[in-house]
């Protein structure tokens, strides 16, 4: 296990310490628990708060999307583990400006149960919460069981849209409806080429033979639909875009936002080779790409692999996506 760390136990807290030292003007810890971070101006009166959270090891997910026009706060778990309900609750208290708080995070059991508990705690303190979970991974469940899908990189679109809505002063129900609408219109599928080594166990998250890839992999290395021989970039893009277009029922004339996401070790160059083909395929279907994002948006430590997300756009979603945003990890001007 070759990692640039001190001890597996200190890894998460030292990482957070580094983030706070690097970006003191943009992020702060509202209380004593270093696992809770909020944007510098969190709690602005009248503005809907957005709290996200989840396990560590996915940077820039989740902490990276706390900022202007994005989320207001985050609760941070151990590597690939949920934060506690108490941490989510602390974040909730810190970001609430009287207009209520949206919980927006990925659909994983541990996270769901802890956010739900936090919602109960918040209710006791008269803070209204709504919950929307990212569930964009088409490989994790068939369309009939859409509600049970895992949340992966496509949650970025929901952060961006809901964050823009909160920033312009929409009320909680509207912000939640926007997040839900974006989640509903987002589909993602990924492939994995090599595993992650968990710092605490020093075990690979999965195993693959030389020359194999896992199609439909999740961001913790969860198995997908199909394990097969590594294909070319074009074949991979064709396969994934085909699945996403079918899932979203895109037809000629549709507009989409595209996110080609690197899982950690895959070079940015390869993501652009993928994007090239995504563009070709969508053009062939007369689907217009209105916004493109290429880079690392949701990683799995040093896993090699990539995912492609599509968000079907209407004018409202497009405007929210294009709104300005700023965090230490993401900037839209």
């Amino acid at each position, binding site marked *: 296990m070759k990692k640039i760390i001190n001890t597996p136990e200190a890894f998460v807290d030292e990482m957070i310490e580094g983030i706070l030292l690097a970006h003191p003007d943009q992020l702060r810890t509202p209380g004593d628990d270093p696992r809770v971070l909020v944007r510098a101006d969190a709690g602005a009166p009248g503005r809907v708060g957005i709290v996200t959270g989840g396990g560590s090891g996915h940077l820039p997910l989740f902490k990276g999307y706390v900022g202007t026009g994005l989320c207001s706060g985050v609760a941070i778990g151990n590597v*690939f*583990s949920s934060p506690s*309900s108490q941490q989510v609750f602390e974040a909730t208290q810190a970001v609430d400006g009287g207009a209520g708080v949206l919980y927006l995070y990925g659909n994983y059991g*541990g996270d769901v*149960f802890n956010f739900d*508990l936090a919602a109960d705690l918040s209710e006791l303190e008269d803070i209204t919460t709504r919950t929307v979970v990212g569930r964009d991974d088409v490989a994790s469940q068939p369309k009939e069981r859409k509600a049970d899908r895992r949340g992966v990189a496509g949650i970025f679109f929901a952060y961006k849209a809901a964050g823009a809505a909160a920033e312009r002063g929409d009320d909680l129900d509207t912000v939640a409806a926007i997040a839900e609408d974006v989640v509903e219109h987002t589909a993602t599928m990924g492939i994995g080429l090599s595993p992650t080594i968990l710092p605490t*166990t020093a075990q690979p998250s999965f195993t693959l033979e030389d020359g194999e890839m896992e199609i439909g992999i999740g961001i913790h290395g969860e*198995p997908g639909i199909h394990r097969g021989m590594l294909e070319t970039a074009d074949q991979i893009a064709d396969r994934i875009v085909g699945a996403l277009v079918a899932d979203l029922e895109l037809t000629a004339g549709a507009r989409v936002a595209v996110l080609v996401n690197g899982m950690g070790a895959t070079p940015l160059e390869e993501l652009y080779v993928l994007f090239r083909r995504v563009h070709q395929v969508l053009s062939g279907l007369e689907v217009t790409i209105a916004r493109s994002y290429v880079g690392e948006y949701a990683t799995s430590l040093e896993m090699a692999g990539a995912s492609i997300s599509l968000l079907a756009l209407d004018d409202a979603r497009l405007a929210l996506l294009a709104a300005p945003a700023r965090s230490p990890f993401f900037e839209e001007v």
Partner: protein
Amino acid sequence: MLATELNESIRRSLTELVRYADELRDLDQALGDGDLGITVSLGATAVIAALEELPDAATPAEIAKACAKAFANANPSTMAALVAGGLLAGSKTWTDTTEVDVAAAARFIRAGGANIGQRGKTELGDKTILDAIMPAADALEAGGDAVTALDAAIAAAERAVVETRGLQSRRGRASWLQERSIGLQDPGATAFWRYLQSWRAANVAGAEQLSGELA
């Protein structure tokens, strides 16, 4: 059993439970991410510390709530959240309870299990902790003296745990393994069974020897 005795009994049983941490870690390593050992050992330590802080006047319901809060935060995870939620739901059945007997225990465990099932969107046979909780609740509801009822609950839970081996995991991280989960024993169900055993070993006279064998 009165509140102060309940407090002590829980602490004693949790001291016993941590002996199973490695077993739970290994089971969770095979089916999940291996953190259940830590969840249980940190959780037990946190609950013991919280209970030591409680005043003697604390009611059974207050004791259960203190357990919930401490366990939830010790090592956040699925089990931490579900068990904490279950304890809170159980505590609500004790609002007017000053003395905990078999019937009170049955009420508590039934309500806790129902809450876990609801929050976890889980049914019996999904290969989760629920599979061990519900048969134990059934056994306790059948009544009898405390030790007999407890032994029946332990036996029911053990049977359920063994049966999880044949099931496919339908919830949580283990469900990602799909068919590959068959043959492996559910860590959460095991944890519940081990807790009942720990209670007996720590609190029932004559059980020390049994407990010794597990070391």
